[in-house]
């Protein structure tokens, strides 16, 4: 009996503790003490910009190392490049450098800005710039843009830095321009840069780290910034995003001033909450395409690819899978209208294959494809054509895109299966060529050369089974290789354009991949506290709160009043 009493009192105690918890929890919830996140934000100073962009994974780790892949998004508000490159239209703005000049097509000379200081008070100089590039050479794993495959040396000459190339490669300028510069006096002693945890970052940028918790961090204005007079936003706050759905709810309820989210029916769910202030701009940032494995039958047949390009209803994809936020992708591989100066005017309809089922069928029958009695399309050996498209698991809008393609191609009598492997196996399949058809993103680079080179250069078209991270559809065409080579050597845009036009014609006629839509850069912002945001009419930067755009945008924003 006694034993039971002991247990009984244990249970009673637990029960009481539980009850106490209930009382305290509900006590905290009474209306008088309500401290919702929204209320807290509103009570903040008006000079704080709240940005919903950094998701953590799922909480924040305190690391502002520009070379660490899982660093905080705020890192790019702290370090700066030599030039600001607007990826929307390729426009170059001097930043830590004031100018550049080509000496021939194998030597680039960059003049470094004077009077810039690191945020620890040390002066910034050309030596830091040269150090940064040589640091990448010493640590090849950091050289994500492959600079040292084309550079032979980087040297200081007074306040100039000279980049000498192994062979001419003019488009590499964009990679050099956008490389983040780090201070020699900090990094010279760091031997393992990728794994180094940096909690107190030394940069030249407009912000320094303020508070940090695993759920939120704040950046505050760098008082010694070289263009401090242009920075009117005193604090930038980064709360943890949460998952996509709660993030969308937070954005809709006005807790953030700036966010980058795919949000359905943005007009109703965001703009309508505060029509005077809530704005969005979703410019194209790349092209979503259907890559067909060109080493496999029947994808190696140009007519077959053309028929597919006509039979896929790209307009419906843009409307339904992407909620009508994006426009149809041009087969020329350019982001329009930003890159329209590169567009070959001879291409019909800006290089877009308009949906035309009858034409698709006509092309197929002309190329000798027949259908059987059930209406299934047969290949040349008489077997029904059927293939599988792979999309990474969880990429819901692109999965939806592929489902639309599935139903479109069934009208040609082609059975398409959609598989959704995990990203790791998706990308491995792409790299080794073990796929039939696949989702692929390309384009959206400052110079179209970079896009074309990675998409089309036959050097990267490895045999199936061997790895490649570019040209995974395995296109090869010696004429295109020649054109790319010409482009590398041309310093004038007129000469570059000539090559571009011809490459676009190949893109249009031979269809290395089927362009679907222009993948958008999602960006929602509120003009309640700050105005001066980039927009379609003033596209001075891509509106994303990540990458280098914030440097440009935060030197443009001004308080509302």
């Amino acid at each position, binding site marked *: 009996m006694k034993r039971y009493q002991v247990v009984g009192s244990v249970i009673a105690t637990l029960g009481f503790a539980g009850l106490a918890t209930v009382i305290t929890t509900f006590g905290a919830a009474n209306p008088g003490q309500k401290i919702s996140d929204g209320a807290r934000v509103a009570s903040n100073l008006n000079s704080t910009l709240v940005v919903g962009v950094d998701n953590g*994974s799922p909480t924040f*780790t305190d690391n502002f190392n520009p070379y660490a892949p899982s660093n905080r998004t705020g890192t790019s508000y702290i370090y700066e490049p030599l030039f600001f490159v607007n990826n929307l239209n390729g426009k170059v703005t001097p930043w830590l450098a004031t100018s550049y000049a080509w000496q021939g097509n194998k030597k680039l000379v960059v003049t470094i800005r004077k009077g810039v200081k690191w945020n620890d008070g040390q002066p910034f100089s050309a030596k830091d710039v040269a150090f940064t590039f040589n640091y990448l050479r010493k640590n090849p794993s950091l050289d994500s843009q492959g600079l040292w495959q084309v550079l032979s040396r980087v040297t200081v000459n007074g306040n100039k830095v000279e980049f000498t190339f192994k062979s001419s490669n003019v488009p590499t300028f964009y990679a050099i321009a956008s490389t983040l510069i780090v201070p020699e006096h900090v990094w010279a002693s760091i031997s393992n840069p990728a*794994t180094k945890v940096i909690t107190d970052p030394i940069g030249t940028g407009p912000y320094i780290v303020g508070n940090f918790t695993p759920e939120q961090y704040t950046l505050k204005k760098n008082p010694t910034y070289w263009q401090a007079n242009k920075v009117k936003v005193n604090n930038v706050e980064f709360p943890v995003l949460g998952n996509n759905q709660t993030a969308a709810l937070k954005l809709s309820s006005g807790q953030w001033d700036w966010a980058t989210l795919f949000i359905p029916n943005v007009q109703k769910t965001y703009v309508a909450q505060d029509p005077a202030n809530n704005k969005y701009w979703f410019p194209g940032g790349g092209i979503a395409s259907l890559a067909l494995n060109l080493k496999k039958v029947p994808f190696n047949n140009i007519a077959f690819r053309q028929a597919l390009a006509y039979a896929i209803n790209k307009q419906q994809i843009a409307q339904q899978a992407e909620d009508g936020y994006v426009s149809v992708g041009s087969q020329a591989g350019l982001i329009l209208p930003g890159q329209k100066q590169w567009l070959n005017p001879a291409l019909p309809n800006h290089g877009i294959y308009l949906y035309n089922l009858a034409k698709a069928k006509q092309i197929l029958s002309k190329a000798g494809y027949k259908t059987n009695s059930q209406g299934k399309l047969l290949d040349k050996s008489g077997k029904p054509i059927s293939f599988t498209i792979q999309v990474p698991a969880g990429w819901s809008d692109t999965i939806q895109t592929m489902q639309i393609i599935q139903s479109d191609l069934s009208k040609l009598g082609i059975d398409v299966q959609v598989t959704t492997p995990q990203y790791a196996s998706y990308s491995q399949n792409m790299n080794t060529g073990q796929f039939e058809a696949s989702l692929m993103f390309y384009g959206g680079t400052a110079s179209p050369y970079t896009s074309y080179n990675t998409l089309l250069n036959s050097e990267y078209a490895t045999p199936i089974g061997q790895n490649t991270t570019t040209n995974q559809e395995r296109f090869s065409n010696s004429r295109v290789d020649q054109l790319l080579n010409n482009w590398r050597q041309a310093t004038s845009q007129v000469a570059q354009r000539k090559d571009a036009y011809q490459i676009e014609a190949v893109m249009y006629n031979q269809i290395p991949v089927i362009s679907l839509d222009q993948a958008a850069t999602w960006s929602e912002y509120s003009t309640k506290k700050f105005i001066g945001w980039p927009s379609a009419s003033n596209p001075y930067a891509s509106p994303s709160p990540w990458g280098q755009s914030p440097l440009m945008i935060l030197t443009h924003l001004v308080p509302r009043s």
Partner: protein
Amino acid sequence: MRFILRKFGFLVLTVWVAITLNFIIPRLMPGNPAEAMMAKYAQQGPVPPQQERALELMLGLPTGSLWQQYWGYINNIIHGNFGVSYSFFPESVLSVILQAMPWTLILVGIVTILQFIVGTLLGVYAAWHRGKKFDSSATVLFSFTSAFPYFWIALALIYLLAFIAHWFPISGGYSGSLSPAFNLPFIESVVYHSILPAITIFITGIGGSLLGMRNNMINTLGEDYIFLARAEGLKSKTVAIRYAARNAMLPIVTNFAMSLGLVVGGSLLMETVFAYPGMGYLMSTAISNQDYPLLQTLFLFITISVLLANFAADMVSGILDPRVRKGAAR
């Protein structure tokens, strides 16, 4: 003593099985993603050799014989070396998990015990007043609430109470403007953020405890000694609590540990919806980031937590019931 040893032996065995499953699963699957994983690590920067070895062993990259791999893997686990997390690179998997663990253990632990107690008491009440209004309505109602997916209840609560009514925060574990510290504002914020997650676990979990207790209680109420007690004119409340409920509790305590596995599973999904900074949300982000080392180690930690809770419940039921100790009822 033999009872404790036997249960402890079982605990060790189950932990070993969990560890071994973790080792086997990646090796059984066709098209092992391990190589792609290592390639992704290589892009991030050099992984320290010891960590790299731990990753290879965990992900199942072929190095050495299977036995060598296995012993290397066990050895790493004993030394707490689970490799580095991919999504938190360069942080180690262990430090990431240790940060998330208290959130889940405290919230899920407290609420599970709470719903168990409340559910059991209601079960006693329902069984005692069997066939009456409360019994028939409560059994049907709670069968229904416990039939909803945890994440669905969580969604509904966020939408109604947080987004529409603004009574509670939409997500997170505490207000981001506060630094985690043991002070009143922070604790208040934590409690405030935990209410909706707690309600979710409570209303989906309580049905199980209630129905289980009710049925056991009805069984016990049919036993001879209860009839005897009643016949002797003892107060019905005394009979219900002292005699019937206590004996009906015995199998329920054992069941508690097992239902814990279910509650933990549901809580993982609940945390995902609330973006609650515990192990469940961590697990779902590990899935979407393909952070296999983190995912596997999370599985291990969750399993070990459940096994320990199970062991504790076994001990409690051993104290409660001598028959259990002697191994008569397994």
